[in-house]
């Protein structure tokens, strides 16, 4: 029986229980994630991190949450009040919705009922996650616009451009998975990875997804929408109290959500590591949930590691990387994957398919070498005229003072 058929027999109350379970897991994961991130980043920066509230500082996020809730809730005078209130609500509600299609365990027995820890199984489950993510961005953009001030607006603009560009790369990286799994349903993709994880078979897709998921969640080094060094706090500069807490929550729930999707699509979902498959039957199948969360935590650690290691990208570099590297690379990779798939479906021998793949790799390598060696490395001083050192001030016609001079130097 497939997971979809098992889930089809769920009575309403089981679905409700699973919904509550998913919600609690997501909120708890957020609290743990904030604490874990602060501790890990502290270690990486040779500090200790929060260690006062509760054992090892575990309750720090909880007390921070209470503190946030008790703070004064400001709404700026220039803000568009309705949109200002709706924006964090959109962010915080959509971030939970993608968990509905994530398979967290294999078939288990819940209150004597045979089911799987997955709320529902859509034939287009992965697309559903993409759709939810794209609605979630509305929260950020509307927050930026409705704040009625410059930095949030810039943050909102950046984030919309960022999401539009990186969602294309993300969607394209998923196409190879769909081609190999023959389905867009999350549970079937997990089932198709029983033998080989797609992170190995479709390694380029995995890399592209991993990069674009960092861009999608606005995390360092791609946190241009809130770049605290440039935009104060970006889209959430004007937010305080519970509304800010909602954005905070949404950010971390989103990280867990994209990590969970990455686990599902590329790391075999709830399946055990190769060679440890006997553990999947422990505790009547419930042990698979441990594997699932172990993989999610692995991804979360990568997120924190990135933040502790890499400086923020400049905005034009970031956009160039998305459009000129990630998207063409994934288009090329899809062509190769589709060709290989058709070859193996048409009965070409394994050697033939492998030969094709090796041939492609060779062609790309030779091409890149040729490009590198043909590029002239000029040793001349670049022919650029450097203007007098000045600050970027718009040329405003000035009525007083020695105006002639200013027009010469800034015109």
């Amino acid at each position, binding site marked *: 029986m497939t997971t979809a058929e098992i889930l*089809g027999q769920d009575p309403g109350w089981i679905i409700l229980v699973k919904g509550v379970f998913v919600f609690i897991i997501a909120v708890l994961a957020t609290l743990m994630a904030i604490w874990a991130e602060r501790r890990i980043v502290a270690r990486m920066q040779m500090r200790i991190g929060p260690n006062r509230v509760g054992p090892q500082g575990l309750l720090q996020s909880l007390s921070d949450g209470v503190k946030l809730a008790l703070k004064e809730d400001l709404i700026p005078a220039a803000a568009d009040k309705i949109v200002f209130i709706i924006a964090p609500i959109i962010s915080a509600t959509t971030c939970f919705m993608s968990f509905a299609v994530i398979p967290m365990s294999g078939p288990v027995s819940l209150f004597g009922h045979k089911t799987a820890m997955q709320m529902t199984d859509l034939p*287009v489950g992965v697309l559903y996650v993409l759709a939810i993510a794209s609605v979630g961005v509305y929260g950020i953009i509307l927050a930026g*616009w409705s704040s009625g001030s410059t930095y949030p607006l810039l943050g909102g603009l950046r984030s919309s451009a960022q999401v*539009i560009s990186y969602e294309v790369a993300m969607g394209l990286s998923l196409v190879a998975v769909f081609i190999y799994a023959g389905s867009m349903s999350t549970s079937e993709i997990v089932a198709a990875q029983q033998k080989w994880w797609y992170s190995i078979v479709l390694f380029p897709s995995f890399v592209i997804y991993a990069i674009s998921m960092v861009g999608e969640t606005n995390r360092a080094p791609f946190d241009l929408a809130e770049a605290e060094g440039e935009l104060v706090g970006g889209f959430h500069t004007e937010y305080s109290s519970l509304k800010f807490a909602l954005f905070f929550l949404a950010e971390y729930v989103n990280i867990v959500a994209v990590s969970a999707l990455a686990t599902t699509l590329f790391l075999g979902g709830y399946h055990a590591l190769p060679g440890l498959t006997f553990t999947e039957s422990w505790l009547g199948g419930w042990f698979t949930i441990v594997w699932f969360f172990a993989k999610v935590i692995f991804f979360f650690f990568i997120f924190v590691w990135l933040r502790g290691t890499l400086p923020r990208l400049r905005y034009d570099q970031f956009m160039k990387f998305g459009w000129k590297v990630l998207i063409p690379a994934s288009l090329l990779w899809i062509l190769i994957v589709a060709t290989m798939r058709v070859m193996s479906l048409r009965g070409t021998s394994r050697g033939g398919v492998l030969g094709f793949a090796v041939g492609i790799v060779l062609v790309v390598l030779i091409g890149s070498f040729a490009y590198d060696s043909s590029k002239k490395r000029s040793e001349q*001083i*670049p022919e650029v005229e450097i203007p*007098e050192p*000045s600050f970027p001030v718009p040329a405003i016609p000035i009525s007083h003072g020695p105006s002639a001079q*200013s027009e010469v130097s800034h015109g």
Partner: protein
Amino acid sequence: MINLALEVGKTAAPEATMFWILGPLAVIAALGMLLVKKAVHSAILMAWVMITLAIFYIAQGALFLGIVQVVVYTGAVMMLFLFILMLVGVDSADSLKETIKGLRPIAILAFIGFGGLLVSLIGRATLGHQIVGLDSANANGNVPALAELLFSKYVWAFEVVSALLITAALGAMVLAHNHRVHQRPTQRDLSILRFRTGSLAETAGLANPGVYALHNAVDVPALLPDGSAAPTSISAMLEARGDVIDSSPFQLGQAEESEGEDK
């Protein structure tokens, strides 16, 4: 392939309930879209109408269409709209006066044309036909059925439309592309130039304007190690306006006697 959304769609009572809740909301949002003053509000209401339409599609068995509607229209097209609205800052101050003559009759003509098209399409699809639903079309699953149609019966139309869209996108890029007269110096170029020309005094970057205990502002030149003011540390614009304060009173040891600002 069983799924909940389809199950809900098949039963009459839940679908009716959903329709009577979402239907009025969609209509109100659609009317509001035309009536609200701010362009951004209009865009948000439009996004909401699109989402409710997507839910209707899903409830009626067109799962793929519903999800794609959200991804493409709400997620990409509406987002671009919002992007432009926010970038340009279109607001209620936007006048309703015609800037190009004859737009109104053309708009009315286009409206009549599209309205006629819509009515005739709906008429062709419904009049004299029995409603069969999507059950038989979805027999092998919604996505495979759609794929089969798109890549067999409608493959020609599909390819033509994609070619058209790509041409349009390329055309927009060509039209909007402007060629730089001078190559913009990159960070690398600037860095090389700093080392190869002039003194090495500015290789580490220019000094910031003065940040002093008594006067923390951009209009005081920074003091160099030898006590002289760094002329490059303030904006030439301020200098031209004569809005620059002498920074010598802020030197170490002289700060106590100075009065701070004496403009």
